[in-house]
């Protein structure tokens, strides 16, 4: 096995003292950057890129990849403990992580997240090692119609969930799509829906701004209103034994979500243009759809934490694949890593595997090591994060507010975004009072900017003929499945009426 000997060399390279030290440093830095609301792996990698000229390219990329990894683990921490997504990739983690924390099970949520992240990252790395070249050509066969079909499928998983109120879900998706349309139109290049002619809207509405508003401010208001300030987070205790039993429970109740997330995340990750955020949201939708107990989702299901967390790690490894094999970024963070390779004097592209095999395999080897390091470091810090939850809510609430504002400002450094956060927070609170699900709106604002241009590109390709989505060999089956999933609730409704009539 040629691959195995390359891999062995790669792992040995990653275990060299300097590289190992950089992995540990990178994962730790990443963990905290990921945990800081608003700052994600993109910011972390961009900020630290210029200092990497101090070490050889091999070590530099290993360091930056470790930050990327660490941030994927870290994103879950504030999602669970504070209810604010630490990074856009961890938004779906708040759906179930936060309810778990409110039930006093924060450590279960965090342990589940850490284990799921580890499994997701490792599964993706193994797939990467074995099938990189084949998968790269698969990614290339995904043109605009295929990507759009995939987006349709993602929306379908959210509409077809059955249990929720479908008209309200559709309304929520539409609201998200409208917000996603604000900014410049990629096809014509004209400004579009610049609300109230405020210049800030030209940039569009940042996803992280919406997420912090909805889940940071909105969630805080909701908690205050529901409990009148008397938050009863049962005093979380942290013992080694407790963590062991949490780990056991996480394995029992989260394995399915982990499996789904690892596979979907990886696949979405290798498609250029998608990345870890859509991957984690889609995994959540699919896991809920396939679950025997979908009603538990949103109320504290370990599967609901495991699916997005395994997916975001899996996707971040996956997005390295088009970067290394094709020189095309699969996510915003890998786009910066590519820039880094140019700075270090490498040419990203199809020849990188051949011309710089030591560099590539050193990086792949480091994925394995980084995952182990991230798991250990993350587990070690969990007691610290859970301890934060012991703070009285009267201290925690202002802290969440400040973190939301600081986090929202840090990414774009724009006051306009701060106002949006507050407005989104208030709107989310009221929508929630009227029982509108918010997750579909969040999904729409992430996927809308991918779905809309690919739809229009496809129709330009086919001169306006929508059959392009059904006649292409990959797009066709995906579209059909998506349509079936969308129609499923209607069919169920009809059946129910029939049996009702019979009785």
């Amino acid at each position, binding site marked *: 096995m040629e691959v195995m000997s390359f891999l062995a060399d790669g792992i040995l390279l990653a275990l060299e003292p300097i590289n190992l030290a950089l992995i540990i440093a990178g994962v730790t830095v990443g963990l905290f950057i990921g945990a800081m609301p608003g700052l994600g792996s993109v910011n972390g990698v*961009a900020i630290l890129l210029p200092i990497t000229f101090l070490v050889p390219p091999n070590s530099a990329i290993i360091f930056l990849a470790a930050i990327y990894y660490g941030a994927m683990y870290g994103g879950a921490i504030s999602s669970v403990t504070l209810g604010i997504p630490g990074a856009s990739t961890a938004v779906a983690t708040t759906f179930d992580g936060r309810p778990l924390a409110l039930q006093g099970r924060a450590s279960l949520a965090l342990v589940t997240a850490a284990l799921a992240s580890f499994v997701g990252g490792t599964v993706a790395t193994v797939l990467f090692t074995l099938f990189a070249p084949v998968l790269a050509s698969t990614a290339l066969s995904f043109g605009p119609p295929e990507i759009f079909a995939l987006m349709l499928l993602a929306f379908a998983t959210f509409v077809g969930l059955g249990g929720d109120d479908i008209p309200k879900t559709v309304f929520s998706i539409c609201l998200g799509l409208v917000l996603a349309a604000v900014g410049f139109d990629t*096809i014509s*290049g004209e400004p579009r829906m610049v609300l109230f002619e405020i210049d800030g809207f030209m*940039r*569009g509405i940042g996803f992280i701004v919406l997420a912090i508003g909805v889940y940071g401010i909105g969630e805080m208001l909701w908690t205050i209103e529901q409990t009148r300030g008397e938050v009863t987070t049962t005093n979380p205790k942290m013992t080694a034994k407790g963590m062991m039993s949490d780990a056991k429970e996480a394995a029992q109740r989260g394995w399915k979500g982990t499996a789904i997330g690892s596979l979907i995340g990886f696949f979405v990750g290798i498609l*250029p243009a998608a990345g870890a955020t859509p991957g984690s949201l889609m995994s959540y939708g699919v896991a809920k759809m396939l679950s025997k107990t979908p009603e538990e989702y949103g109320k504290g299901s370990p599967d609901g934490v495991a699916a997005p967390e395994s997916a975001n790690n899996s996707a971040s490894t996956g997005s390295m694949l088009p970067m290394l094999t094709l020189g095309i970024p699969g996510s915003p963070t890998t*786009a910066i890593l590519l820039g880094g390779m140019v700075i270090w004097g490498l040419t990203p592209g199809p020849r990188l595997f051949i011309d710089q095999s030591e560099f590539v395999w050193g990086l792949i080897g480091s994925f394995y090591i980084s995952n182990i390091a991230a798991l250990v470091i993350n587990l070690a810090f969990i007691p610290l994060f859970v301890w934060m939850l012991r703070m009285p809510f009267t201290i925690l609430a202002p802290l969440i507010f400040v973190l939301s504002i600081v986090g929202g400002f840090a990414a774009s450094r724009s006051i306009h975004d701060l106002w949006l956060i507050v407005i989104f927070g208030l709107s989310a609170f009221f929508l929630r009072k009227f029982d509108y699900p918010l997750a579909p709106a969040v999904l729409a604002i992430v996927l809308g900017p991918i779905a809309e241009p690919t739809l229009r590109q496809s129709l*330009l390709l086919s001169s306006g003929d929508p059959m392009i989505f059904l006649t292409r060999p990959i797009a066709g089956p995906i579209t059909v499945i998506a349509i079936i999933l969308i129609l499923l609730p209607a069919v169920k409704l009809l059946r129910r009426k029939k049996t009702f009539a019979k009785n």
Partner: protein
Amino acid sequence: MKLTKRLFLALAASTTIATLPMAAFAEDWQPKRPIDFTIMAGAGGGADQIARFIQSVVEENSLTNRPLIPTNRGGGSGAESLLHLKDARDPDHTLMVTLNSFYTTPIRQEALGVDIETFTPIVMMGVDPFVLWVHKDSGITTFEDFVAKVRDMDGEFVMGGTGTGQEDSIVIAYMSGAYDLKVKYIPYDGGGAVAKDLAGQQIMATVNNPAEAKGFYESGDFVPLLSFSDERMDAYPDVPTLKEMGHDFSYYNQRAVVGAPGMSAEAAAYYREIFGSVYDSEKWQGYLVSESLSPMVMDEAETRAYWATQVQNHRTLLSELNN
């Protein structure tokens, strides 16, 4: 529409002499705060790569006493950046790395009220030429084949680019006009996405900067057919230029560092010295060669004159594009 690069190259020598005394009084002014280093494009694109490269050279040699803080403000084809500079509260600490949306966006979005001729020239780091690429499996090996194929397909030939009004669409529009070609143009949101879909043969040809297609060229997947530079490029000596074909047209992407309007002369002189030494560094000179950028050294007055002609040229090109 002759972009007079050669003229400026000829002036290069005098420029060097003219800028020498500046170094003397540049010592008087030092940044007092971290320097806002705005990037006119999103993370990972060509402009972003260059900005981070420049930043790494500055850091490596500790050229400034305050750090450069790069921030991507790519929204609205760079409109976000232009407004940020125009309204900069502290022009002495506000810089921007540009591409050609520096010219096109204010023309296309007059409501912005941005006049780039009020901006402060710092250093022209180089200009990035454009090349026409096809996939090796298309069977097209020369520009003549390409023209024949496009005419043969009568409007069904698919090209990808970064959007109407963007650099590549201007080049494609000129080429189509000159050779009476009808193509289907599919817009993408970045050069990387365009290259990926050419590699996957979702589209049939692109006009792209060499930096974005280089990896696929070296692996043999992409075939360069024509360059839109003034002279044949060193990296692609066998690829003809449109000029050789008898059309007086060349087009480059500007890679420059620009200061906010109202920057003081002392601050501008300081930054010119800093980025001038980045330009002269071995690392940057190596980058120019490896990424096929052309040098274009200009002093302040020449840059202002260059901007004026570029604005005029883009006005003409964009109005032709809309017709």
